[in-house]
């Protein structure tokens, strides 16, 4: 007779994940190198910008200190766009602090030469001069851009930010590796904070007649590019009531981000159904008795056992049922069980 298999037998040996985890560790240990950098608090005045950075970039430190682009500037269009993203960064700096320190190498004296994090540094300068923070009625910090027409450049000597400083200029390979390490070491914000900020910021941008781009999210929240696209989908659907509801749930840790993404990407008409499907009040599960007789084949024995334990009407009824057929026997037994439970608890 074939018995139902209850436990699936695991394959002998070690799980594949265990092995790959150990292998990754061993590989990392074997190729581990010394930390060639240390974290320093560097005065903004001592940070030299990266002149030959690979990304084309028009803004200069003067523009940042001034806080606005001169109308007669030949590259004024590009600069305005760049300044916008710097402002976004500056606001997030005020909100969260520097999530990811810029990279630099040491020059003679106190000066350091940037190799990455140019925009973050500029944002720190912008925030120093042109972002004002105040506490609102709900005890939240509010950050506003207020352009200071007469910035006091001496303050650059006092304001310090954290910078990863190498003792000497590292080679490209090291830099590339550091970029990867960077992604791991980024400070993790609670998802509720990220969501609240993203929505607020997107609203602000929209009021100014501009849409949020993926790069803004990469810079401000430390997301990867693919993550940023996912977040953009959420941001674009933020007005939808169902998306909002799910956002709250995600913020409270009651729903995974993947569901938020799914609902944001769904057709607007389908969102309610999706939400109901996940969190709506479901019909109570059917609690009516389902009985399994297992592999019992001795139905006559079952019948006599049952009949010996019941009395009165129900005995007659059960006695007349067809105990020879497993299906009806099952029904009869279920009825007996219900009766038994009702009488004996």
């Amino acid at each position, binding site marked *: 007779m074939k018995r139902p298999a209850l436990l699936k037998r695991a*394959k*002998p*040996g*070690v*799980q*594949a994940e*265990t*092995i*790959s*985890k*150990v*292998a*990754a*560790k*061993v*590989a*990392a*240990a*074997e190729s*581990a*190198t*010394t*930390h060639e950098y*240390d974290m320093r608090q560097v005065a903004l005045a001592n940070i030299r910008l990266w002149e030959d950075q690979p990304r084309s970039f028009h803004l200069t430190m003067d523009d940042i200190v001034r806080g606005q682009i001169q109308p007669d500037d030949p590259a004024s269009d590009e600069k305005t766009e760049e300044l916008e993203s710097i402002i976004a960064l500056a606001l997030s700096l005020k909100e969260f602090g520097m999530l990811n320190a810029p990279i630099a190498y040491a020059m003679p004296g106190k000066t350091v030469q940037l190799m990455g994090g140019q925009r973050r540094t500029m944002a720190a300068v912008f925030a120093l001069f042109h972002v004002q923070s105040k506490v609102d009625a709900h005890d939240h910090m509010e950050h506003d851009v207020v352009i200071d027409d007469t910035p006091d450049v001496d303050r650059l000597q006092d304001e310090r930010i954290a910078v990863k400083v190498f*003792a000497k200029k590292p080679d490209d390979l090291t830099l590339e590796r550091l970029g990867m390490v960077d992604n791991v070491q980024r400070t993790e914000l609670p998802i509720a904070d990220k969501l609240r900020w993203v929505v607020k910021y997107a609203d602000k941008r929209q009021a100014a007649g501009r849409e949020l781009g993926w790069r803004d999210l990469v810079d401000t929240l430390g997301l990867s590019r693919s993550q940023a696209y996912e977040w953009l989908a959420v941001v674009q659907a933020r007005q939808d009531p169902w998306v909002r509801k799910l956002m709250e749930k995600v913020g409270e840790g009651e729903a995974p981000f993947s569901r938020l993404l799914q609902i944001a990407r769904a057709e607007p008409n389908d969102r309610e159904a999706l939400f109901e499907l996940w969190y709506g009040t479901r019909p109570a599960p059917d609690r009516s008795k389902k009985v399994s007789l297992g592999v019992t084949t001795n139905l006559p024995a079952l019948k006599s056992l049952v009949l010996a334990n019941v009395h009165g009407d129900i005995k007659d009824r059960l006695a007349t049922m067809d105990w020879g057929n497993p299906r009806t026997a099952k029904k009869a037994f279920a009825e007996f069980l219900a009766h038994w439970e009702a009488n004996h608890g």
Partner: protein
Amino acid sequence: MTNEEISPAPDYGNLRVLAIMNHKGGIAKTTLAKLLTEYAVRAGKRVLGIDIDPQCNYSARFVEMEADGGAPPPHPNFDPADPTWDELAYAPPGYWSIAEFFRLGYVEPYPTSDANLHFIPSHKRELTQFLEQVERNAIDEAVIDHMRAMLALDFYQEEYDLAIIDTPPQTSALTASAGRAATHLLIPTEMQEDSVAGMADMAQLWQAENQTRTGEKLHLVGILPTKYDTKSAAQRRTLEQLSQNPVLGDKLIDPPMRYLQTYANSSATYANPRSLFEMHEDTPARVEAEAFCRVIFDRIFGAAT
């Protein structure tokens, strides 16, 4: 971090320091240490055995221990009439153990029945006490960096070709000390889920050590499967999985250690014959031990020797 804080690789000249490590207990670390020591002596190397495990089992194999195996005997050079003893700030009570090695920065290795083998035994009580006495903020210098600083002395470089360190089954300052001092690392492990997963922690320690070394890295000699039972399908499969892994496959030492009981018996304090390598040369355990010891030696000294 200034340059002084980055410790370069240990500068030992030709001395190789092999640390046998795994923070799991009972996976034949000490047995392996004993076997390798015997093998190395027979291979003509000048060997220094160092036991930093308070259990003292490695010591008991080569030094006749006292106090139920917890303390080394008086050193043969010990002469109570010698006035220099009194000049020492801390006069050792006639013996030298690894506790003195840490406390005083000096120790006289014990001679053994093999002229090529000297030994720094452990001391159950003193070593434990020492570790309790070390202040938290001094532990780096007093324990972790200490062994490397000691072995870098000319004396050790001139006297020995190979130092073998048997470590306690823990990830403590003692183990870290061995890791810091070592040039080569050997990880014995059982072929089962927990032990294999535990190797990630060993790799972590290894990685941390390599991150402090600017020059020569700490080399992994290999991973030796121990207590290997060919009758167990799970163990066979685990070994197969490991050997198929591109990273771990290269590290595995073949053959695995199978005859643990024979090794344990042959390396008991009063074993007869004195060593596994004095058994008949067809003894399966001897054949196997010679095979994996040779692999380990080739990886430490280069295949030429």
